[in-house]
């Protein structure tokens, strides 16, 4: 019976009545309050993926290099020389909306733990950020706080933050996105996982003491934001990067000793989720006594202990008899390491307080939330998008283009992001080969000559206008960025940020997006090794643009093959690989200059994409590519301008004035286009490689002087362009 009392309880725990009935069936009795709370958090969207699970299953997850696909704390791929790369992306959107500095900082802390928990040393961080428009004071506050939070946390840890993306669009006004990605490396043989196997093995809590921080944070992340969110928010989690640094060093040292059976970080839903996930992965049970857990505050209840999201803690299952070894290592780092229970054979999660049982439920049942197949309806706005006619947009006069280019370069979306990444220590550990500011960043795998190219990409306006194709393009663009830095794309992690999946139009976006990712990942042979889904990104009923962020990792056999986007030497020849079509739909140009966020997306031919990427990879291997840069937001003109900035080297460009309207030539965002420069002496070899791969290529000019000239459309001093491009964000942010 759904009494008022029960109704309140269910609402408090975020459970539906059907879900409650499923719990009754599983238990064969009524759950007590603590048990109900455990189901509440574990079956929250954030922990259970109940609306996305079925869709995620359709993604490709296998390839020659995948060692660990989705399901663990992070994915793992082999990168040769007996080494593995470990990586994952995670969102911290809601916490960052409420408390930008701490929300973003603890987001970084969480993803770093996901990586070192697999035994890997984190070697690089990236972050993908979305905010409302910067002309709003609150948005500036959120933006500034998020960047400072990421910076302070990562910098203190001594992990370089080497890349990411930063976009501004009104759809994120009340609901910013903060996704953090971490990449680590380790010898393949040192892999560990988060399973609690071995009946009788001790269960230990290590790291920070537990307070009442962020209780029910997972449930909070599974609701839409509203004006009341301020009041409802769980007590905010505060990060302690120094503690995390100690925890990381201690855990890596511990894992090397070989005494660890399983280890898992305590993220969302803290002790509850870490214990039941470790047990259910191994098919075992866990029994623990909360009275043994080191507490930061007085009079904590079992409920507080189980649901607290205090940061910088881990759950460790060592081999029996090795407790002292664990303690010894953590002691040296000045950290707690306490046995709180043991692995049991009964499959139950048993929670005691001072020896008295407070809750006992099958661990697998907590991890086995219902799976939903929500209804999906094509949103009506797509009709208008598809019927958009470009001919209604005026073509600018020749003498307007200089100003248009400057306006684009000085817009927050296309301007330099140095204001962001200079707050991040992107060089610490002396392995950063390609610094932020180019396409993908490249980090060396220490002790080898190998490098990993990493990038995050997503054009969410594209994904809004066409979720399927927009997501395909995101994958292709990520791969293109890896290739432009000299790498070969290997695998991805995905950060899916969407609105409320219970709304059919939103679920349509999600389903289409997954389908697009599937198609592109298959074609490019870059499987998905893990990721994160963040739903309910809405504010006052308004959803964000669908934002499936693609975090991609690629391999360079030798870091000396690394390529950057900037022009290197006067006289180098400039080529455009790929085709420019009359495609302005969804472009930054249409949005900024004409105020239109609509239109059909540029086409994407995955076979051509592959061939073009292959061409660049081969040319890189022949060591003839001096610079490479893909054409993304802002099109050809912006890409060329970006390549002039670093060294102040201009270019003289002649493009055949053909069928495509001039603004589309300059600013259209046709896909699969890469600008490369080569020395004159390598012309023949380069053309051979292009024709062997049958890709369209045209020589468009050469590196020359200190001006950028494109036909009779653009003629501007690089210094001037650079000033506008560089100062845009600093200027806005200093006018607080």
């Amino acid at each position, binding site marked *: 019976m759904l009494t008022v009392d029960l109704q309140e309880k269910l609402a408090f725990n975020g459970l539906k009545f059907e879900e409650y009935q499923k719990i009754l069936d599983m238990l064969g009795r009524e759950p007590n309050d603590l048990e109900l709370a455990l189901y509440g958090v574990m079956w929250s969207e954030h922990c259970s993926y109940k609306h996305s699970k079925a869709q995620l299953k359709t993604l490709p997850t296998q390839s020659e290099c995948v060692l660990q696909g989705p399901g663990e704390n992070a994915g793992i791929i082999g990168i040769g020389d007996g080494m593995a790369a470990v990586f994952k992306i995670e969102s911290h959107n809601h916490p960052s909306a409420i408390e930008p500095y701490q929300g973003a900082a603890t987001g970084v802390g969480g993803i770093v733990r996901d990586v070192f928990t697999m035994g890997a040393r984190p070697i690089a961080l990236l972050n993908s950020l979305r905010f409302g428009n910067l002309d709003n004071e609150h948005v500036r506050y959120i933006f500034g706080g998020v960047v400072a939070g990421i910076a302070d946390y990562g910098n203190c840890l001594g992990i370089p933050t080497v890349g990411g993306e930063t976009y501004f669009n009104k759809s994120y006004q009340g609901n910013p996105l903060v996704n953090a990605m971490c990449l680590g490396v380790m010898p393949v043989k040192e892999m560990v996982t988060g399973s609690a196997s071995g009946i009788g093995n001790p269960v230990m809590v290590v790291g920070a003491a537990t307070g009442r*921080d962020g209780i029910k944070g997972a449930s909070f992340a599974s609701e839409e934001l509203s004006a009341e969110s301020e009041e409802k928010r769980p007590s905010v989690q505060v990060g302690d990067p120094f503690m995390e640094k100690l925890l990381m060093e201690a855990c890596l040292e511990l894992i090397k000793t070989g005494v660890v059976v399983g280890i898992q970080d305590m993220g969302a839903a803290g002790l509850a989720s870490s214990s039941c996930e470790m047990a259910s992965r191994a098919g075992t049970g866990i029994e623990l006594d909360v009275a043994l857990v080191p507490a930061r505050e007085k009079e904590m209840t079992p409920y507080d202990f189980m649901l607290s999201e205090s940061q910088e803690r881990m759950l460790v299952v060592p081999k029996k008899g090795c407790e002292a070894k664990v303690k010894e290592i953590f002691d040296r780092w000045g950290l707690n390491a306490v046995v709180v229970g043991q692995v049991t054979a009964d499959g139950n999660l048993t929670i005691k307080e001072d020896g008295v049982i407070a809750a006992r439920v099958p661990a697998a049942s907590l991890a086995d939330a219902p799976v939903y197949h929500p209804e999906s309806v094509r949103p009506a706005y797509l009709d208008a998008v598809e019927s958009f006619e470009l001919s209604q947009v005026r073509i600018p006069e020749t003498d307007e283009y200089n100003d248009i280019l400057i306006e684009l370069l000085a817009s927050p979306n296309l301007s330099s992001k140095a204001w962001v990444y200079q707050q991040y220590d992107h060089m610490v550990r002396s392995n950063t080969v390609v610094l932020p500011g180019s396409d993908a960043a490249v980090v060396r795998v220490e002790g080898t000559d190998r490098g990993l190219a990493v990038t995050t990409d997503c054009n969410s306006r594209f994904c809004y206008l066409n979720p399927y194709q927009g997501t395909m393009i995101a994958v292709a663009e990520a791969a293109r960025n890896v290739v432009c830095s000299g790498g070969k794309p290997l695998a991805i992690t995905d950060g899916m940020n969407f609105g409320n999946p219970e709304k059919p139009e939103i679920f349509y976006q999600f389903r289409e997006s997954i389908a697009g990712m599937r198609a592109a990942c298959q074609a490019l042979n870059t499987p998905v090794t893990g990721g994160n889904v963040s739903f309910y990104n809405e504010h006052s009923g308004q959803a964000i643009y669908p934002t499936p962020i693609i975090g991609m990792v690629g391999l360079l056999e030798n870091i000396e093959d690394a390529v950057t986007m900037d022009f290197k030497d006067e006289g180098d020849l400039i080529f455009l690989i790929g085709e420019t079509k009359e495609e302005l739909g969804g472009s930054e140009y249409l949005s900024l200059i004409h105020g239109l966020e609509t239109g059909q997306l540029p086409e994407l031919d995955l076979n051509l994409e592959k061939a073009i990427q292959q061409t660049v990879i081969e040319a890189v291997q022949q060591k003839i590519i001096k610079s490479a840069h893909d054409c993304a937001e802002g099109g050809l003109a912006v890409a060329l301008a970006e390549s002039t900035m670093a060294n102040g080297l201009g270019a003289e460009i002649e493009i055949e004035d053909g069928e495509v309207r001039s603004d589309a030539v300059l600013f259209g965002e046709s896909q699969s286009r890469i600008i490369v420069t080569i020395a004159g002496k390598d012309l023949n070899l380069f053309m051979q490689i292009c024709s062997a791969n049958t890709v369209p290529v045209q020589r468009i000019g050469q590196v020359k002087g200190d001006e950028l000239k494109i036909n009779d459309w653009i003629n501007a001093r690089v210094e001037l362009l650079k000033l506008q491009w560089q100062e845009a964000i600093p200027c806005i942010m200093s006018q607080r």
Partner: protein
Amino acid sequence: MFKIELKVMPRKGILNPQSTAVKNGLKAMGYDNVDNLEMGKFMEFTIKAADRAEAEAYVEEMCKRLLANPVIEDYTYQIYQVEGE
């Protein structure tokens, strides 16, 4: 003119790594007799206002908008009337 002394302290129950670090630092130096350490910010400034009530209204507003972060900090202040127009 009024002089304001404003204390901005971390909210009770919220982790405060700064305080912990100082506490541990003192302990390591042998000051075992120190306890309950909390660390926060202190600001003093003058404000021109018609009267105490107006000054207070300003201070409240400034705290909410800039000087304190209500999500993780509490503030208290004292107002003194001082010379100066």
